[in-house]
């Protein structure tokens, strides 16, 4: 369908010409690509990674099969993630003359039912999620608007605006929605210094965690001496439980490319790298396709849009390591070395990749840039708080009803995010803690729920924004175990350069392990283990003070913050040998209900420790000292007589 009008024609009319009137042919195409009204039914399948894990591929194949078997004409489009990961696989349908509607959890079995309704020009109410607002068409009756759903109402989607809506690998569609116009205006009509000023004025801060002013960073690099400079886009998010950049690239790679071109122009470089995790197969594929589209349309390469500006984007696949939050480590990796941080100063903006001035920007930061320029600095600074303008994307996960990808204005409270957007706690559980900022972030407790999420307020409760992981825990989560889990991860991620980080994290892990395990010998008295806690605090402070890079400086944070908020849970583990969430396996105590036990002897036979005693047809008994908490008796009991206390 792209044959009728090549992309470079679109570029000419949409990007280069300033007249509002478009030639008929272009206008028709733009109209069709904007899909305000359609001639054929359009079926959109949410095919981000989360969608695919949920089975979007099978659903897609089933829809294709249905269309073929029933000889139906329809346009089938794969889109990115719209953020509602809890409702995947999502299928949207737009009928001619009707607004687009969204179906949730469309497994292959539901396809026939839904499509039967669709081709009868109606809808299947059972699986409906909502309809999109469309000003020029009469809405469906009795279907709520998507944007009125609590999940969306409390969000402000700027960067993710088009994710899950547009075809991610159609440059024409992106341009028809106003894409690349900000880039064209920048490189044709603005000076690099002007753009930097604009971004400084907007107050945009790095979304990777540090929160440094993006425009300032560009300034330093632009002012640095030397002809050759580099721009590196960090899309290698390595936090477990964070998938913001991936979903962004899968859903709208052109937005990132537009941001990169503008940033490169502002810094005065023609060489850009996108560093992206090799396991993000789908994101890499879509980004590569989008880059090729840009090259064909003349938006990347030599003398783009006849402006005299050259630009080249190279994809580098990261081989996996957590230390990439530290930009100097990322730079070493790009040079083909071990990803070990370098001392600062000199800062990368003065001496970075191949010792040339280098700007490292997070993907989300760069994706903000075209939006700011398109809608204006004044519009942008009104969103969020005074010192932290704009929005932040979070990957929301854990024990909540609606996990997904959200974008909220800075200054939104945790309570609002959890109660309204996330739909509250799962299975009516009660909130215990939330981990913000990934493994090296900190946990917040109930009393911090009304804290606002912006750089300043978070610093006030000794927490960090991080890159955007937000995991919510309920009463069934053990905070000691969670601290141990993070420490295990960080210890494995430590690059090994600084001794406090390399050895210190290992010692901290050992202390946490000894708290969560049953002591093997009796020499390990509770007092010794309690001393462990004191050492944790001391050790944590030393690691924070003496490590070179951000990883080490923040590594003790999850443990120290858990200790601060949940000290009594640590003490319970030590003195009472009890894990109130029953997560720490070694500390579980099983009991047999004498009323329910029939004396079938099966648990006694299966117990690997010989901890169960009793005679046939009489209730059995578990010897607590011998029990290791393996839970086999619990699994094998047919009478539900074994219980945890």
């Amino acid at each position, binding site marked *: 369908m792209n044959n009728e009008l090549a992309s470079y024609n679109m570029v000419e009319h949409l990007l280069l010409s300033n007249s509002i009137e478009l030639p008929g042919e272009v206008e028709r195409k733009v109209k069709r690509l904007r899909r305000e009204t359609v001639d054929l039914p359009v079926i959109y399948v949410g095919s981000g990674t989360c969608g695919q894990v949920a089975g979007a591929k099978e659903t897609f194949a089933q829809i294709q099969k249905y269309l073929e078997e029933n000889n139906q004409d329809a346009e089938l489009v794969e889109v990115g993630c719209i953020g509602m*990961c809890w409702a995947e696989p999502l299928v949207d349908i737009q009928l001619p003359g009707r607004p687009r509607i969204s179906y949730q959890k469309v497994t292959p079995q539901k396809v026939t039912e839904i499509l039967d309704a669709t081709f009868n020009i109606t809808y299947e109410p059972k699986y409906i999620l909502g309809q999109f607002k469309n000003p020029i068409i009469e809405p469906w009756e009795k279907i709520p608007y998507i944007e009125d759903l609590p999940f969306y109402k409390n969000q402000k989607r700027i960067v993710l605006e088009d994710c899950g809506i547009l075809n991610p690998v159609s440059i024409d569609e992106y341009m028809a929605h106003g894409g690349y116009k900000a880039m064209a205006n920048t490189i044709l009509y603005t000076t690099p210094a002007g753009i930097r000023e604009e971004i400084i004025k907007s107050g945009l801060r790095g979304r990777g965690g540090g929160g440094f002013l993006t425009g300032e960073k560009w300034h330093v690099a632009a002012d640095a001496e030397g002809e050759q400079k580099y721009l590196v886009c960090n899309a290698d998010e390595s936090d477990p439980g964070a998938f913001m950049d991936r979903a962004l690239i899968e859903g709208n790679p052109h937005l990132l490319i537009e941001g990169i071109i503008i940033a490169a122009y502002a810094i005065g470089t023609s060489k850009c790298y996108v560093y992206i995790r090799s396991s993000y197969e789908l994101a890499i594929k879509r980004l590569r396709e989008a880059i090729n589209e840009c090259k064909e349309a003349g938006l990347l390469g030599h003398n783009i849009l006849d402006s005299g500006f050259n630009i080249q984007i190279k994809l580098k696949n990261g*081989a*996996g390591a957590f230390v990439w939050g530290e930009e100097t480590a990322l730079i070493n990796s790009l040079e*083909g070395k*071990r990803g070990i941080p370098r001392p600062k100063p000199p800062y990368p903006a003065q001496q970075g990749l191949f010792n040339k001035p280098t700007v490292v920007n997070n993907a989300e930061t760069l994706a903000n840039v075209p939006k700011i320029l398109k809608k204006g600095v004044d519009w942008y600074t009104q969103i969020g708080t005074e010192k932290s303008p704009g929005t932040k994307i979070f990957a929301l996960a854990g024990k909540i009803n609606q*996990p*997904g990808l959200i974008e909220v204005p800075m200054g939104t409270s945790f309570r609002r995010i959890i109660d309204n957007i996330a739909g509250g706690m799962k299975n009516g559980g009660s909130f215990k803690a939330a981990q913000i900022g990934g*493994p090296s972030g900190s946990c917040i407790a109930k009393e911090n729920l009304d804290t606002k999420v912006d750089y300043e307020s978070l610093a006030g409760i000794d927490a960090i924004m991080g890159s955007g992981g937000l*995991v919510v825990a309920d009463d069934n989560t053990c905070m000691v175990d969670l601290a141990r889990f993070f420490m295990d991860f960080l210890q494995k991620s430590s690059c090994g350069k600084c001794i406090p980080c390399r050895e210190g994290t290992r010692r901290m892990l050992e202390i946490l392990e000894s708290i969560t395990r049953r002591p093997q010998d009796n020499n390990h008295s509770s007092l010794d283990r309690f001393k462990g806690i004191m050492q944790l605090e001391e050790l944590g402070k030393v690691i924070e003070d003496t490590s070179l890079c951000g990883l080490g400086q923040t590594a003790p944070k999850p443990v120290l913050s858990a200790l601060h908020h949940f000290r009594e849970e640590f003490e319970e583990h030590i003195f009472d040998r009890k894990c109130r969430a029953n997560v720490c396996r070694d500390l579980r105590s099983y009991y047999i209900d004498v009323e329910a036990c029939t004396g079938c002897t099966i648990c006694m036979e299966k117990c690997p420790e010989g901890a169960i005693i009793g005679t046939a047809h009489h209730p059995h008994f578990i010897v607590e000292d011998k029990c290791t908490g393996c839970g086999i008796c619990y699994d094998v009991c047919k009478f539900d007589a074994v219980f945890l206390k």
Partner: protein
Amino acid sequence: MEDKIKNILTEYRPSGREDLISVLQLIQGTFDYIPEEAINVLSQEFSLPPSKIYSIATFYNQFRFTSKGKYHIKVCNGTACHIYGSEEILREIEKQLAIKPGQKTNDGMFSLEAAPCIGACSLSPVVRINSAYYKNTTAGEIKEVLQLYRNNEEQ
């Protein structure tokens, strides 16, 4: 094997050390792991001692030095999956197959990996076996799945 590695190099034409990691990725893409021969060939190509190449390759999580099993099991151990009990699942698999993460069963059928995050946090806990995903899964379900694979193989 050496010829194959050399072919990869002639095709890619690395311009310098900055391409080392990409070349290692291509080699792993071809062989499924980094064979010892590759370290030596790359050492000559990049004029670096083999120890240096090995040190770089071992730094990154992506590189493996033994081949995968016929069924490669990836247990997601991200934060969300951990909260939902992924360690119990991992322990069950370790028990069933008698291997630890990073190892392969003697018959070459299964290999096990604990992945930092698969990226489907809304469906935790998630286990991936080759290209099939098991979402919102439990230790019990995975036990049955492993048995199923075993039975299929025996037939």
